[in-house]
C-alpha cells in the first residue's frame, strides 16, 4: 500500500520537471523569432497605424493628430484613384493571361515525355532572372525605332507602335512583361497538380468514351485541378497587385500617369516626398486589398473546392 502510493508521489516531481524543461526550451527557441516578429512586423504595424492618423512628414519637427483625414484625402485624391484603377486593370490583364496561359502550357507540356524538361527550363527561365535587368532589355526590344519588335511590325506592313510611351499601350505592355515573368512559375504549380491526378482516371475515362482532348479536360483535368487553380489564381492576384519594379524602371508612372500604380505612389509619397502620414494611410489601403485576396484563398481552400 505504502509502496504503491510512494511510487506516483516520487514520479510526479520528475514529470513536472520534465514539463517545466519543455516549456522553458520551447519559449527559448521561440524567443528570437518572437522578438524579430515584434520588431519587424508588429511594432512597425502599430507605428504605421499611428502615423496614418497624423500629418507627420519625415524630417519635419511638428505633427498634428488629424484622425482619418489622410484616408479621406486618399480616397478623394484623383491620382490615387487613378493609380488604384491602373493597378486593378493591370491585375485584370495579368491574372487571366498568367493563369490560363500557364494552364494551357502545363497541359501541353505534361504529356510530353522527352521534351518536357526542355520546355520546363525555357518557360521557367524568366522566374529566376533579375527582372530589373531584363526590363532594360524589354525596353530596348520595344524601342519605337531600334527595337526588333517594331522592326517585325514594319516588315509586316504595320505602323510602328511606341509601346511604352503611348498612354493607351503602356500599361498593357507592362502587363505582358508581368505575364512573361510569372507564367513559368504558375506552369510549374499546374504541372505539380497535374502529376497528382492518377493515370487510372484518364484510362477509365478513355474506356468510358472521353476520347477527345476537350472531354478529358472537362471531365477529369479541370475539376481535379480545382484547388491548384484556386491557389495559382490568388497568388497571381497578389503578385500582380504588388507591381512596382517594371514601373519604377521603365515608365515611372508615365506617360501621363497611365502606368501609375498603387505601390509606386506609396513609394513616391513615403520615400520621395516624405508625406509620411499620408503614405501610411495609403499603405493600409494597399494592405486591405492584399488581405482580401488572402482571405478569399483561405475561405476557398477551407471549402475544399474539389471533393
Amino acid at each position: 500500500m505504502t509502496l504503491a502510493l510512494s511510487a506516483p508521489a516520487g514520479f510526479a516531481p520528475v514529470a513536472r520537471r520534465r514539463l517545466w524543461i519543455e516549456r522553458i526550451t520551447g519559449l527559448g527557441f521561440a524567443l528570437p523569432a518572437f522578438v524579430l516578429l515584434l520588431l519587424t512586423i508588429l511594432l512597425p504595424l502599430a507605428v504605421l497605424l499611428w502615423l496614418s492618423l497624423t500629418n507627420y512628414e519625415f524630417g519635419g519637427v511638428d505633427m498634428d493628430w488629424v484622425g482619418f483625414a489622410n484616408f479621406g484625402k486618399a480616397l478623394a485624391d484623383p491620382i490615387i484613384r487613378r493609380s488604384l484603377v491602373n493597378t486593378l486593370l493591370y491585375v485584370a490583364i495579368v491574372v487571366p493571361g498568367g493563369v490560363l496561359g500557364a494552364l494551357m502550357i502545363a497541359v501541353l507540356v505534361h504529356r510530353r515525355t522527352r521534351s518536357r524538361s526542355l520546355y520546363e527550363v525555357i518557360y521557367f527561365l524568366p522566374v529566376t532572372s533579375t527582372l530589373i535587368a531584363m526590363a532594360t532589355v524589354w525596353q530596348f526590344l520595344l524601342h519605337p525605332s531600334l527595337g526588333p519588335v517594331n522592326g517585325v511590325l514594319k516588315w509586316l506592313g504595320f505602323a510602328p507602335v511606341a509601346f511604352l510611351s503611348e498612354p493607351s499601350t503602356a500599361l498593357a505592355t507592362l502587363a505582358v512583361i508581368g505575364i512573361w515573368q510569372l507564367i513559368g512559375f504558375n506552369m510549374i504549380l499546374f504541372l505539380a497538380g497535374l502529376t497528382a491526378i492518377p493515370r487510372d482516371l484518364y484510362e477509365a475515362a478513355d474506356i468510358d468514351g472521353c476520347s477527345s482532348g476537350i472531354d478529358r479536360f472537362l471531365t477529369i483535368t479541370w475539376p481535379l485541378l480545382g484547388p491548384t487553380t484556386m491557389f495559382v489564381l490568388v497568388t497571381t492576384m497578389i503578385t500582380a497587385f504588388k507591381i512596382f519594379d517594371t514601373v519604377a524602371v521603365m515608365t515611372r508612372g508615365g506617360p501621363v500617369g497611365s502606368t501609375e500604380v498603387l505601390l509606386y505612389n506609396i513609394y513616391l509619397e513615403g520615400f520621395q516626398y516624405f508625406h509620411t502620414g499620408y503614405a501610411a494611410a495609403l499603405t493600409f489601403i494597399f494592405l486591405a486589398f492584399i488581405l482580401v485576396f488572402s482571405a478569399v484563398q483561405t475561405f476557398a481552400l477551407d471549402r475544399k473546392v474539389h471533393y
Partner: protein
Amino acid sequence: MATVALSSIAKSFGSTKVLGGVDLDIADGEFLTLVGPSGCGKSTLIRIIAGLEHQDGGGVAIGGSRVDHLRPHERRVAMVFQSYALYPHMSVRANIALPLTMSRLSLRQRLPLLRLLSRRRREVMRGIEADVGAVAMQLQLDHLLDRKPAQLSGGQRQRVALGRAMVRQPAVFLMDEPLSNLDAKLRVHMRTELAELHKRLGATFIYVTHDQVEAMTMSDRVAMMDSGSILQLGTPSRLYEKPASLKVAQFIGSPAINLLPATVAAAGRLELFGRPMALAVPLAQGQAVTLGIRSEALALVHGEPGAPGRAWFTARLRRKENLGSEYILHFDLAGRDAQGVTMRTTPAIAAGLSEAAEVTLGFDEAACHIFGTDGGRVEPRGENGATGSVVPLRA
C-alpha cells in the same frame, strides 16, 4: 456478347520483353481468368485487349472483327480497375452515368453553357437516369447515388466501379485485380457476387488476378501465365489435377503441392529415397525427377509399409495447424535432401499424433505428378510396360 481472339500478341517495354506471342481464344459468355505471379504480363495483356496499351505484334479481335485500330471506347469493352478509378469529384450517379452521357450526347450537348441550348438533352438525360437507376438497383447502390466516392466503403466503391462498367452493356468485361483492395472477408463475398453477376449478364468476362483461389473459384477456364506466355490453359480442375508443368503445379492449390526428389533407376523405374517404386517413366537411367503430391493425397501408414502401388517415407511431425474442419500437418524430412511436406487430414487423425512424433507417410503412386528436370510433366509408362509420353512444354 462476343468472343475474344488474341493471336500472337507481343509487347516489349524498351528492352524488356513483357509478352512473347500470346494466342488465346475466349468463347462468348465465358469467364476466363488470367492468373500468374506479378510481372508475368497478365495486366499488360488485359490492357492491350482494352486498347489502353498498343501491342508490338499480333492482333486482337472482338466478336470476330479486328479492333487493333479502334480507340478503347469503340471496342465495346468495359474495365474495372484495381484502384476502381472512380472520378472523385463526381457523385455515384454521375460516375455511373458518364459512359452513357459520353455516348448518347453530342459534344455540343456536353459542353458547359452551350449545352443549355439543347432541347433534346433533357430527354436523353432522363433516359440515362433510368438506366443508371436500374443498374444501381441491381447492385444495391440506389441509396448511395448522391454520395461522393470518398464517402463510400471499399466494397461500395467496388460496386460503383462495376456499375459504371455494366451500364453500357458491354460485350466484354475486363477486370484487373478488382478484389485486391478489399479485406479478406469482403473478397470472399464479392467472389460469389461476381460469379453470379457473370451468370446473370451472360457477357464475356476476362479477369486478371494473382490469387489462385479467385482463379479456381470463379472461372470457366484459367490461363496460367508466367514470363509473358501462357503455361497452361484449361478448366480449374484440369489445372489442379493435370498441371502441365512444375510451375503450374506449384502455383495452383493451397497448401502448395509437396515436392519430393526422385531418380530414374533401371528400366525407367523411379526410386524415392532409395526405395524402388512401381512407377516407370520413359526417361534414361540416372536422371533426376520431381514428384508432386497434393497434401490430401498423403496418408499415415499404420503397420507394415510397402503395399503394392503405394510409396512411403518417414517423417517427423513439426506442427499441427488447426483450421477447424480439418488439420494441416507439417512434417520435417529429417536428414533428407528435401523440404518438409504438408498433409491435409481430419481432426480425429490429427488428435492421435503428438508433436515430434515419428511417422510413416504413404501415397498412391497413381496420384502423384512427375516432372522432369526441365519442369515439364512426364506421364508414367502403363502397367504392362506400354510407353508413356513426355508432354511437351508450351514455352
